[in-house]
């Protein structure tokens, strides 16, 4: 495959899907913008280096979403030592938020704070299951774990999110699956 052809296809892909990948990264990184941007950049570079696999994928965006999850897990694991010491109690962070603003902006900060208090793999489970709408088996395949692990991580994560949001002025209605 010629470089020019690969580059042209890559540019089209980035133009179409970068925003989607950034939204995914924002959730995975719990609103850490710099971390999310770095995850996106690393993912796009990896996709370019293995562009043949992206082309052969049934759904290139789905392939990219799996890749970004892997990049996030790698980076989160590597950065864990440093990052884990900087995470604050999300309810403390929320207490400092301004009380005025649109519902969505307030909700955004609350949800990101709650996601930040989950472990990286639990966060990935939530994003894969409830943002990418993958089933349990596919989520397990992406994360390289058993379906039972996905179910238990998902249940714990949702219970935690419900607790954190319940401590604020918001309620989260959700089904634990």
């Amino acid at each position: 495959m010629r470089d020019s052809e690969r580059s042209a296809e890559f540019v089209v892909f980035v133009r179409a899907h970068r925003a989607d990948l950034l939204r995914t990264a924002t959730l995975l990184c719990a609103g850490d913008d710099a971390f999310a941007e770095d995850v996106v950049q690393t993912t796009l570079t990896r996709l370019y280096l293995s562009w043949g696999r992206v082309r052969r994928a049934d759904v290139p965006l789905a392939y990219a979403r799996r890749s970004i999850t892997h990049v996030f897990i790698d980076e989160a694991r590597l950065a864990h030592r440093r990052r884990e010491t900087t995470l604050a109690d999300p309810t403390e962070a929320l207490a400092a938020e301004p009380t005025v603003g649109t519902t969505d902006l307030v909700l955004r900060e609350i949800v990101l704070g709650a996601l930040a208090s989950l472990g990286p793999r639990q966060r990935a489970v939530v994003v894969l299951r409830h943002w990418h709408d993958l089933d349990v088996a596919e989520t397990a395949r992406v994360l390289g774990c058993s379906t039972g692990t996905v179910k238990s991580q998902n249940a714990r994560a949702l219970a935690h999110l419900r607790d954190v949001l319940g401590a604020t002025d918001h309620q989260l209605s959700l089904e634990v699956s």
Partner: protein
Amino acid sequence: MSPSHDLTRALQAAAETGRPAVDPGADLARARHAMHARARRRVRTGLVGVAAAAVLAVGTVAVLDRSATDPAGVELVAQRFEATPYTFDLTPQGWSVQAQQPWAVTIVPDDGSTSEDPDVFVGKLVIMFDANRPDGRVVDHDGRRFWVSGDSGYTTLATRTRAGEPSGVVRIQYPADAGWDERSMVDFLASVHVGAGAQQGSG
């Protein structure tokens, strides 16, 4: 009355960055740079293999036993460098210190293929100092004990600091696809001296 949200809507609200679209040019330039860097590493590996005998003759420690699936090679040379409070007796050719802190040193390839953010460790060599108990497969080398562990494409080597150094465990974490191998990493870790200003990281 408290507002109620379903999870999808909550995630949707959380995912919105509000940032404008980015021109793909920067992503393309970064990706092309990484591809060229990978090609250069592959060429360099060939040169390292040809020059192996000469390299050994001048007293360097070379990484020679690459497998067919390991396209890149990293050469360690007997040259001291400082990353205060750490000192290294060996220098990896083509790699440089990106960040040094009392609890860690980050070393990156010179080809620009890794993040400029020192807190992002993907593709980098990270030397850490902490008090956690080392575990994993045991390797004895030159009178010292090393522990090897790893997963997800990364390997971590750990060893206890020498007598006279701050007490603790010094570790090296390295990516499997960057040309490092266990033997050279043991040599490299054994060359680390932990200075008085070192602080144990948490975690």
